[in-house]
């Protein structure tokens, strides 16, 4: 049966490796996730629909998705700038800053949460600059955007950097000899090359932002209908023992995540066929 399933190879261990892989995968990931979906079916359609389309849920989607889109967009623009500067220019401290780009990815979300809150509160390092200008960040939806921007920062930079590094300087030189000025050659030659990576980075940052919990709940203030993100709503329902409601929201979020994952894979396939 194994031999019919896979092409013959002289390497041993397929059965063992594959068997363990599927077993562990099912045990840890598939069965628990399946249980979540199945639980929804025992709940009854009416309750599911009410929860998923209730006013509080809708407000939380607006916040989670809206803030994630804005944060991912900010990351795309500023992340592109950061990647450009890190790859193309030299300046003191560049290697340290380059290594630090991974900080938001490796830093525990709770640490990010309390630190960003301390920074952007009215008396914080950054907050004290913005307060006189009338810009309140902590405990508003702006704080949510800031936290999600932090979280998504590495995704765009790290996706664009390798592409920038691989770019052949010959293309830009050719454009220059053909009469393009710097801005033209950037816009029409370099930027299209970066587009797939930029899109992928945007999608990754967005997907991560939508499900983010720890970094956001400290700075957001968590007011229902105003600054409550969807994951927090799920936790609140759990605390009230409304398992059915929590699961309904989880299924709605999971569906969004699966669609996103599919879209990311499609994006990557498209950019591979276009630019490979």
């Amino acid at each position: 049966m194994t031999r019919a399933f896979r092409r013959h190879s002289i390497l041993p261990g397929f059965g063992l490796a594959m068997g363990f892989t599927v077993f562990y995968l099912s045990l840890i990931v598939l069965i628990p996730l399946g249980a979540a979906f199945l639980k929804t079916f025992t709940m009854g359609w009416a309750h599911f629909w009410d929860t998923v389309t209730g006013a509080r849920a809708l407000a939380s989607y607006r916040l989670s998705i809206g803030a994630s889109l804005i944060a991912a967009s900010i990351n795309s623009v500023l992340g592109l700038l950061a990647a450009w500067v890190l790859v193309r220019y030299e300046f003191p401290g560049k290697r340290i800053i380059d290594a630090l780009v991974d900080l938001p990815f490796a830093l525990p979300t709770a640490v990010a949460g309390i630190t960003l809150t301390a920074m952007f509160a009215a008396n914080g390092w950054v907050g004290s600059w913005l307060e006189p200008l009338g810009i309140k960040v902590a405990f508003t939806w702006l704080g949510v955007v800031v936290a999600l921007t932090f979280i998504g920062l590495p995704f765009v930079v790290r996706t664009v950097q390798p592409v920038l590094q691989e770019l052949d300087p010959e293309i830009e030189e050719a454009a220059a000899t053909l009469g393009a000025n710097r801005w033209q050659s950037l816009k029409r030659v370099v930027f299209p090359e970066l587009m797939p990576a930029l899109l992928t980075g945007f999608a990754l940052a967005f997907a991560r932002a939508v499900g983010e919990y720890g970094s956001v709940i400290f700075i957001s203030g968590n007011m229902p209908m105003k600054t409550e993100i969807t994951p927090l709503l799920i936790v609140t329902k759990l605390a009230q023992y409304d398992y059915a409601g929590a699961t309904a929201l989880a299924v709605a979020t999971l569906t969004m995540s699966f669609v996103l994952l599919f879209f990311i894979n499609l994006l990557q396939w498209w950019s591979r066929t276009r630019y490979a």
Partner: protein
Amino acid sequence: MSEPRWVRAILIGLALLFLGIFLLVPLIVVFTEAFKKGAEVYLESIREPDAVAAIRLTLIAAGIAVPLNLVFGVAAAWAIAKFQFPGKSFLITLIDLPFSVSPVISGLVYILLFGLQGWLGPWLAEHEIKIIFAVPGIVLATIFVTFPFVARELIPLMQAQGSEEEEAARTLGAGGWQTFWRVTLPNIKWGLLYGVILCNARAMGEFGAVSVVSGHIRGATNTIPLHAEILYNEYNSAAAFAMASLLTILTLVTIALKALIDWKSQVEVREVGEIRERALAEA
């Protein structure tokens, strides 16, 4: 050829402003807040019994999750990279699932499975086995969220390396395990190390998933991030940041190790290239 000098200066300035605010300032803030009340208070808050319990639980959870996910990652990468079979990308997508699921939902699925109202709830209650709101639940949630890290590192790496070297070893008479230990493992060692470091960093720092299954019982079911949250909500900011500083030090070590691995593997690639060139020149 490049942009004019003043354009470069402005771009660098803007980039540094952005990166400075989001990367450097948080680091500074963690440590200034942690030491706000002085070094005495800092050390006290780390030595406090509930804090020590939190540290211990974090180490236990990571100590179980990382080795298990390591073995899984190697097994999955071996099966996917060295063999041909249908459904490979589907398998890879499944492995990536925990990565794309919100941490809160990761915790929720375990409650649905093992909680009182869950599938196995009544059976577990009968046999007095506590999983949710106890240590086993925390370990399971940690395993779930760090599940893909090692596999994600190894699969593309081993796919890029192909199976020629292993096949050559086999034709020369090496056994299965021999081939793995002496041919495959040295080739993947940097990717493996990197995957393990990332897996560990996430395992120790996980918040959302563990928060959901935890029960938040002080001294018993709190990890370092959860304990930091409790302290923060009690307005005990210095102690909360003291806990946070421990995790931040871990993060900095993680980042430093990553930079080291990047550098070492580049050195190796260069060395192998030089050896090849010399061999070709002498041929």
